[in-house]
């Protein structure tokens, strides 16, 4: 009997875990996503208890008290309410909410800062700018800029500085952590970190119109040495980004991956200038009304 129980437990665990690799949110590759997964698993467990209790009561009551033909057809007694019962089922939800609220608030505050495990390391700053429908990643310290992909070193916190050239987007790399909005004329910040080298899917999660679905990017997490090599190579080999080229890239549409050895931050920071993209498009004779008719 006991063995069967263990077997059952073990196999359900296996199923759960094997399912997880297909579920990026539950298969974190960094401390931020990890903290979020812990919170999610904790809340699911508590909620399953709630569901089990309510479903159990529900099933019991409707089978037991269902009217059956031929059964005794007494008139049920009226019940006004019951002070104690009502107190109990007010207090129990309050306790559950507290059990969820405490770790939630703790995690909210934690995620405002670089992960505990790498507190001592200087975060790498990357500006992630969304423009319909592509991603610009600028490394101000390294003076490089990539479009629609990025490289990051593992085990080091990355501080993403988010903004948008136009529509509100959201930077989301499920295996590394939850999303945050990119807004024109606004700066938002989010720490993410990869604990393992690998290629992670990233995307815009917030609807931005026609090209939204394909506004994706890949994250290459690699050892610090490899990362440094990539930086050096890029600095030496990639062309500089010119303002003309940049303005062209801002036109709505998709572009292939690109790499540059300078950043657009020299002439515009979209977190401080909400108008730039509209004006750049106007300069190039772009007319949204014509683009609209399909």
């Amino acid at each position, binding site marked *: 009997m006991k063995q069967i129980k263990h077997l059952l437990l073990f196999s359900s665990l296996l199923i759960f875990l094997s399912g997880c690799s297909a579920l990026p949110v539950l298969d974190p590759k960094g401390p931020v996503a990890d903290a979020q997964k812990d919170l999610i698993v904790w809340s699911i467990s508590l909620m399953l208890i709630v569901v089990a209790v309510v479903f159990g009561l529900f099933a019991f009551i409707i089978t037991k008290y269902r009217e059956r033909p031929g059964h005794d057809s007494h008139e*049920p007694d009226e019940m006004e309410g019951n002070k104690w019962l*009502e107190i109990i089922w007010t207090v129990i939800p309050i306790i559950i909410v507290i059990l969820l609220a405490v770790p939630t608030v703790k995690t909210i505050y934690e995620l*405002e800062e670089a992960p505990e495990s790498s507190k001592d390391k200087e975060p790498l700053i990357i500006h992630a700018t969304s423009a319909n429908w592509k991603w610009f990643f600028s490394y101000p310290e390294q003076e490089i800029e990539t479009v629609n992909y990025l490289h990051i070193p593992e085990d080091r916190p990355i501080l993403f500085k988010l903004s948008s050239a136009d529509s509100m987007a959201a930077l989301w790399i499920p295996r590394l952590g939850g999303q945050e909005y990119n807004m024109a004329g606004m700066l*938002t910040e989010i720490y993410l970190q990869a604990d393992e080298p690998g290629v992670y899917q990233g995307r815009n999660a917030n609807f931005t119109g026609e090209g939204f679905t394909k506004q994706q990017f890949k994250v290459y997490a690699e050892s610090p040495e490899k990362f440094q090599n990539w930086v050096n190579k890029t600095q030496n080999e990639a062309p500089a980004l010119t303002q003309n080229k940049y303005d062209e890239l801002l036109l709505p549409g998709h572009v292939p991956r690109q790499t540059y050895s300078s950043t657009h931050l020299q002439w515009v920071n979209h977190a401080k200038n909400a108008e730039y993209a509209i004006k750049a498009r106007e300069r190039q004779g772009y007319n949204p009304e014509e683009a609209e008719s399909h």
Partner: protein
Amino acid sequence: MQLDEFFVTGDPLIYGADVSIILSLIGIIFVLTKYKKWKWLWNEWLTTVDHKKLGVMYIISAVLMLFRGGVDAMLMRAQLTLPNNEFLDSSHYNEIFTTHGTIMIIFMAMPFLIGLMNVVVPLQIGARDVAYPFLNAVSFWTFFMGAMLFNISFIIGGSPSAGWTSYVPMAGNELSPGPGQNYYLLGLQVAGIGTLLTGINFLVTILKMRAPGMTLMRMPMFTWSSAITCVLIIFAFPVLTVALALMTLDRIFGAHFFTLMDGGMPMLWANLFWIWGHPEVYIVILPAFGIFSEVISTFSRKNLFGYKAMVYSMVVIALLSFIVWVHHFFTMGADASVNSFFSLTTMAIAIPTGVKIFNWLLTLYKGRIKINTAMLWSLAFIPNFVIGGVTGVMLAMAAADYQYHNTYFLVAHFHYVLISGTVYACFAGLYYWYPKVFGHKLNETLGKISFWIFVIGFNVCFFPMYFLGFAGMPRRVHTYAEDTGWFELNAVASVGGVLMAIGFVIIVYNIYYSIRYAERVKTGDPWDGRTLEWSTPAPVPYYNFAKIPDVHGLDPYWQIKKEGKQELDIEEERLEQIHMPDNSGVPVIMSVLLFIAGFGLVFEWMWMAIAATIGVIVTMIMRSFDPDEGHHVEVEEIKEIERNVRRKED
């Protein structure tokens, strides 16, 4: 503007719709003319101020909108069933999910519930009509014309495509020029007038027109839920009105409230939208709670357990619903303290909601539970809504929400609360109150078949979506690659979607079937009901109550039945004249003019907008000078009608 820009062209789906719309219009006109029904239509329906008829028109419109929104849903499911599918391109897909969301919430869920409120609330409180019958007609017609304005975007000019949330700057002129988004703004604006008027009208009705003896704490739960909903409407809808007006100023008159250029503040839209939007989701759930309370109590043959707790919990939910709106954008980068605060307030809503669930369970406990279609919908609500509720609590945990936000997890949550809450309630209410209005029941066999197909379909469709969320699938994507691993769950969801569609078709067929074949009910009280609406004959005479009942407690009709029915006997010699409101053609004309004004603004044809607005003002002036004294129903007529309806009963 050229004609081929005016009409949406180049799509077989839309040509198909054009043809079917024109054919059905011709068909309707032909039938009305052939059977000389134009006058009947005008006198009995278009100009009516009778709350029951308005309610019926609300519900018919809502079912039509459920059909339209459902077709949208089927198209989306078809597109998402296979990876890399090219059935719909992104711009079509975007239009479809935008109209789906907007129609389902604004033009289906709310009108359906308001329709039921119209039919039921005056009857439950022992009133002969609402406080302002004329205004009630204005409410219906502005809603209806707003809905029509929104819907014609499909064939004329193009539909909005920025989502039902219409976030700026994407929804602004700079990124979405053209009439589509204007339709959203003006359709909702015109319909919003109606909703606000309904809120005021029903609150006054409930506060001032209750039968003698019906204190607040003796009101039926559906009436309570309607009253609280009205308060929510009165506080929330003006916010939407202002937000829509500001965006209209931006788009049509070159203002800069939400623009990228010249210092607009896009985040302001998100705040205004959700300050209205969160109470809105409670506007469509509280009446549903009321309906379930009535149905569960009736078919358990017990009074509602914890009546007072039920009322207080709704009040608490209503209050909390105004201080949780930020949970719709935890990811906007607010301070940890702000996100923590809104996490806590949101989770707190689970407490009164939990109380309600246990009270329903205890109402069933030791009852004599009769299972029929209305009750099945109410029973299915409990487990399904619990799933929606607990996942709501999970979403309320801001730090975790960064992962759920904008994903299919969220889509699953709100369909679990909106479908198993609001839609199940609409169906339960439809089956429950239908005989009161039409004098016959809906067929139970078809009812049960459609129930099972729909409910199973619903769970098959939406439960997998929680896992799609964990699998990283964002909402509003129009397709996905094969290597995402999202195919299987999407395919399953689509199967569920088809089942729901079949269920819906059977429900509609059941109405047709029952009209043709169902037996007339012999009494006004086919379910052995507890509240005053069941004390009236079925179908209800247009003045509702020949004699206004006296109320001595909760569930007054149940009490009367227990104590012997004499109290309800109509003593003919004591009947008095009844004062009833007159019909009026002003509401429908005014609303048509509002439609024309809105249409003019959509295309920025100012001459049309101005002329129609002047027309609206003229109708208002006309109305102000109309003494509208109403008329009296003579005692003889009442006797005649009552003898007829009561004779059937014995």
